[in-house]
């Protein structure tokens, strides 16, 4: 029986203000896919879902890049090398591999960036068509993983809301420009719902698949409790259908979601 397991923390590093990345190791992490997540035990009543920021299948190592927003994430961020994290993992439906011959945009906002980095790390090297990475943050000190992308041979375009780094504004304008040049493109995006709603609207009608990774408050994390739902198609007279982020997501195809209800 494959229950929860304890993954050993092998590295901890502060990556930005209130952001910590832990690398954890366990053989059960070997077949983790970008976009999937770990449901992590903390002192609270519920586990906390965190996406993989990087995955080394061979070593069974995965990264967890956590922004401290409350007691659960603060507890995770305070763990030390040599301790373990109790987790259910890997969970959920990750990204489908991109078509290597189609232009590819990776669009991340805030702590939505880590799963996109793991996608780039896994599939970027074999990508033949042009690729474009757009990272959004509130301010310069909160830009995540730009150096990691650079190390993996791509220069990300950075946007900050206050203009303290890169282009002033959000990821939306650069994405719009990219889409006008690449109507046959494919898109992967993760970030706050407001950003994803814009990405969804902008990408209507493009030729390639649009994959959006969503967040929702979770109970079980494994599909049993129906807590983690997002409004989806088909929409009926009395409301939308609801799909589970933990098992039918976190990664959804754009067409699956009912944005007017989100």
């Amino acid at each position, binding site marked *: *029986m*494959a*229950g*929860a397991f304890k993954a050993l923390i092998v590295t901890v590093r502060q990556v930005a203000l209130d952001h910590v990345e832990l690398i954890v190791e366990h053989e059960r992490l070997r077949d983790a896919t970008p976009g999937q997540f770990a449901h992590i*035990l903390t002192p*609270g*009543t*519920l*586990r906390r879902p965190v996406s993989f920021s990087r995955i080394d299948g061979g070593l069974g190592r995965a990264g967890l890049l956590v922004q401290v927003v409350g007691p659960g994430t603060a507890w995770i961020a305070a763990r030390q090398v040599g301790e373990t994290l109790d987790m*259910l993992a890997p969970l959920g439906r990750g990204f489908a591999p991109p078509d290597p011959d189609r232009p590819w945009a990776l669009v991340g906002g805030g702590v939505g960036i880590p799963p996109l980095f793991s996608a780039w790390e896994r599939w970027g090297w074999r990508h033949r068509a042009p690729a474009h990475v757009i990272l959004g943050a509130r301010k310069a000190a909160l830009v995540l993983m730009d150096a990691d992308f650079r190390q993996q041979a791509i220069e990300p375009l950075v946007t900050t809301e206050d203009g303290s780094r890169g282009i002033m504004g959000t990821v939306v304008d650069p994405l719009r420009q990219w889409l006008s040049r690449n109507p046959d493109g494919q898109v992967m995006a993760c970030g706050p719902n407001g950003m994803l709603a814009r990405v969804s609207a902008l990408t209507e009608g493009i030729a390639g698949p649009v994959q959006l990774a969503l967040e*929702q*408050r*979770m*109970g*079980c*994390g*494994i*599909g*049993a*409790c*129906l*807590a*983690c*739902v*997002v*409004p989806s198609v088909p929409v*009926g007279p*009395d*409301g*939308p*259908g*609801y799909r589970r982020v933990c*098992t039918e997501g976190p990664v959804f195809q754009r067409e699956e979601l009912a944005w007017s*209800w989100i």
Partner: protein
Amino acid sequence: MDLTVHLPRNLILKNPIIAASGTFGFGPEYARFVDIDRLGGVSVKGISPEPWRGNPPPRVWETPSGLLNSIGLQNPGLSAFLAEDAPFLRTLDTVVIANIIGHTVEEYAAVAQALDREPAIDAFEVNISCPNIKAGGITFGHDPDAAYQVMRRVRQATDKPVMVKVSPNMAEPWTVAEAVVEAGADMISAINTVIGMAIDLKRRQPALGGVTGGLSGPAIKPIALRIVYEIARRVRVPVIGMGGIQSPEDVLEFLLAGAEAVMVGTITFQWPDRMEGIIEALPNVLARYGFQSLKEAVGAAQRPALADEEGLAP
């Protein structure tokens, strides 16, 4: 130590630990994480005749030692349950309880009638106590006469064992328990979640999409124990207790209060294998507190006063 529990109409549990409805899906979800056949039973997610959408998200909110939920009984409906979930449930070597819900008396009866013929289902749990739906459900759960009507129709629809799940959100929950026993209920399960609410300060809104929700987890254990205790001293049928169970000691508290078996819900989200751990530890914990058998513990903390006063058998 033998942990077998003998319940009415030949319903036999291997042990007194049952997965609580709504926290264990329809079974297959947890099959990867739990050896389901080791459990005493599984109560599946509430089933209605037609699919129910459920409430808008967010549907869960963590509170100190507890969990608020407003799932709203989302379920795929009876036909989908029979086509997609029943085949898996037939393969289980444990008691499967169908938790049934409806907007009307007839809807409850329709589900009971259809599942009466389904071999996967060993017993029913009539849920008249979910705080998360406005029409039906709870309106039956807070009115002994209405509860009686639901149970009477369900009794006509099936000869399988039936328990009725009682709400804690009324002053005297035992009045409903007494009414449904009179209508033919074989057992009582208690408690469903305690209605509550949280405010999301960041959004200046009720935290849950359903505005109010049901509180579960350790926070409600004292409430649950008291209601189980009060019901067990008033009805002659077995009581299945639940609410905040985390450990074998918690199980023992429910047994001593008068429950013959228990259900375990919210803790499974943290520890999917906790029910198995409890089953393993239970004989030792019973022995540690001086019990030679499971049966001996049931009702051991009951005070005789009420039975004497009202001439009820203990």
